[in-house]
């Protein structure tokens, strides 16, 4: 989900002056800043060791800590405050560049951070997160929900949903800081380095997975889109103006694809905005269901599960973070069966699929725009689609992901003097990635006001989404994921 435009649905409050940077580029710069700071570790400088991390806990005093022992004196609460101050500082500078209301952002972000991170801490409580019998014994508890500590994402999402649907005025007040697009894009830029370090251990396997990711592009753009467009037009009688953004939203990558398509076919702005709102709501429903289905039925095919989440969940935020939950759940289930897969491969597969799909949004919008302005609605003189629009709609944060991936891979394979330190360096940056995932989940929840959607009368749009998603997209995604990824297993931890 990416776009050069502001793609956050249901958000209407913005300062009138135009920003000199957009979400995509801002995510690239913040992600690179964190990645570069983590690389100082390669030269012996532990710049990010103070970042807060959460362990599975039964004693609240043991829940929080610093990611590096070098900063242990700071203590858990100190690390939490330091992390908050760093994030609010960097993000405030960023949203100032976006011409947002700074004071309102700082106030809202403070609340967002507190609730989101509190959700994460709750999700790490041993009776929610402990997985193995050894863990249960260690904490002296008879049972656990076995959600792993990444169950905290679900807690954050539910907290956001409660606010959106029970306290809508409070959700409105938080709006300046509920920016799931920005948060997930920063996380994806950081994730590039983590995926690189993971891939470097088994480069042949990683290459194979990337080649198989091409199937996802074909599926999303050529198969999903045409079927959903046909269903919307023929079965539900939608006009072309509604059917095209709807097909892109359901098939490709949710919010940004709907907005890119709406722009390309010259639809009214309200059309992609409403489709985007729908996308976010359905993504929430999917994230609450699909990872648990994957854990139950696909735990023996971990990469099929990772690819499936990438193909079925239609926003970057929900998909990539959903991949994280799926990985945790499947690793936990496998561990209980005595199989200890290396972390990172399932999430890496989901991310690869999603990034591959994102890359072609601009090309697809250009193709649709050309067809619309040349054949379907050729009346507007001089309003032909221009090839520069491909670049304008290209998701720039993908460049950040590619850059951190390339640098990470080079350092892992081409710079032996850094090879032993790199995983630790990237692990510190990855702690920020987890925090941005938490903020994404909470923000998605806060933006998902189900009642408001219904009041806007888009039940018929929801019906197309429901029929297409649960009747076609999820199952075809599962079939294709199975065909291309079954039998491929992540490396086992030795």
């Amino acid at each position, binding site marked *: 989900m990416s776009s050069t435009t502001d793609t956050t649905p249901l958000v209407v409050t913005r300062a009138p002056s135009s920003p000199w940077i957009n979400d995509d580029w801002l995510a690239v710069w913040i992600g690179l800043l964190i990645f570069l700071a983590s690389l100082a570790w390669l030269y012996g400088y532990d710049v990010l060791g103070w970042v807060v991390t959460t362990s599975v806990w039964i004693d609240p005093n043991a829940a929080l800590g610093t990611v590096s022992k070098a900063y242990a004196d700071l203590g858990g609460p100190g690390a939490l405050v330091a992390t908050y101050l760093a994030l609010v500082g960097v993000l405030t500078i960023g949203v100032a560049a976006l011409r947002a209301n700074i004071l309102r952002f700082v106030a809202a972000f403070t609340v967002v951070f507190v609730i989101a991170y509190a959700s994460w801490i709750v999700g790490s409580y041993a009776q929610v997160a402990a997985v193995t019998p050894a863990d249960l014994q260690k904490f002296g508890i008879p049972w656990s929900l076995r959600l792993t500590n990444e169950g905290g994402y679900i807690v954050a999402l539910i907290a956001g949903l409660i606010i959106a649907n029970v306290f809508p005025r409070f959700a409105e007040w938080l709006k300046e800081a509920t920016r799931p697009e920005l948060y997930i894009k920063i996380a994806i830029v950081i994730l590039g380095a983590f995926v690189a370090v993971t891939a470097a251990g088994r480069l042949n396997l990683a290459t194979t997975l990337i080649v198989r990711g091409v199937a996802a592009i074909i599926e999303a753009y*050529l*198969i999903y889109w*045409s079927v959903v467009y046909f269903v919307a037009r023929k079965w539900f009688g939608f006009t072309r103006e509604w059917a095209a953004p709807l097909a892109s939203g359901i098939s490709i990558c949710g919010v940004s694809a709907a907005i890119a398509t709406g722009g390309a076919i010259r639809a*009214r702005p309200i059309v992609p905005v409403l489709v985007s709102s729908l996308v976010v709501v359905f993504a929430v429903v999917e994230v609450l269901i699909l990872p648990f289905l994957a854990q139950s039925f696909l735990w023996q095919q971990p990469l099929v599960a990772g690819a499936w989440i990438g193909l079925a969940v239609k926003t970057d935020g929900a998909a990539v973070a959903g991949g994280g939950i799926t990985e945790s759940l499947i690793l936990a289930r496998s561990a209980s069966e005595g199989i200890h897969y290396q972390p990172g491969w399932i999430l890496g597969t989901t991310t690869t699929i999603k990034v591959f799909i994102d890359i072609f949004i601009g090309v697809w919008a250009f193709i649709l725009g050309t067809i619309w302005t040349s054949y*379907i609605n050729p009346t507007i003189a001089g309003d032909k689609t221009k090839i520069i629009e491909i670049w304008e709609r290209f998701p720039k944060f993908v460049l950040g992901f590619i850059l951190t991936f390339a640098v990470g891979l080079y350092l892992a394979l081409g710079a032996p003097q850094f090879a032993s330190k790199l995983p630790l360096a990237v692990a510190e940056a990855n702690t920020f990635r987890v925090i941005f995932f938490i903020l994404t989940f909470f923000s998605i929840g806060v933006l998902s006001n189900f009642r408001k959607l219904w009041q806007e009368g888009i039940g018929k749009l929801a019906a197309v989404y429901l029929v297409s998603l649960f009747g076609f997209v999820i199952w075809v995604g599962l079939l294709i994921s199975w065909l291309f990824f079954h039998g491929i297993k992540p490396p086992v931890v030795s």
Partner: protein
Amino acid sequence: MSEPDLRNELGHAPTEPLLPIEKKLIGWSLGIGLVLLVILLLINQLFPVAS
């Protein structure tokens, strides 16, 4: 557009029949997609997972 207008539009929009160009777009997309998927599957069979 106000909410009642939107509700009215979505509920009572006049039917727009599928144009030949739309049928071509749907048909060619689906056709090319299926053919490419079969080709990719064959490539996957020829070059199995590297370990």
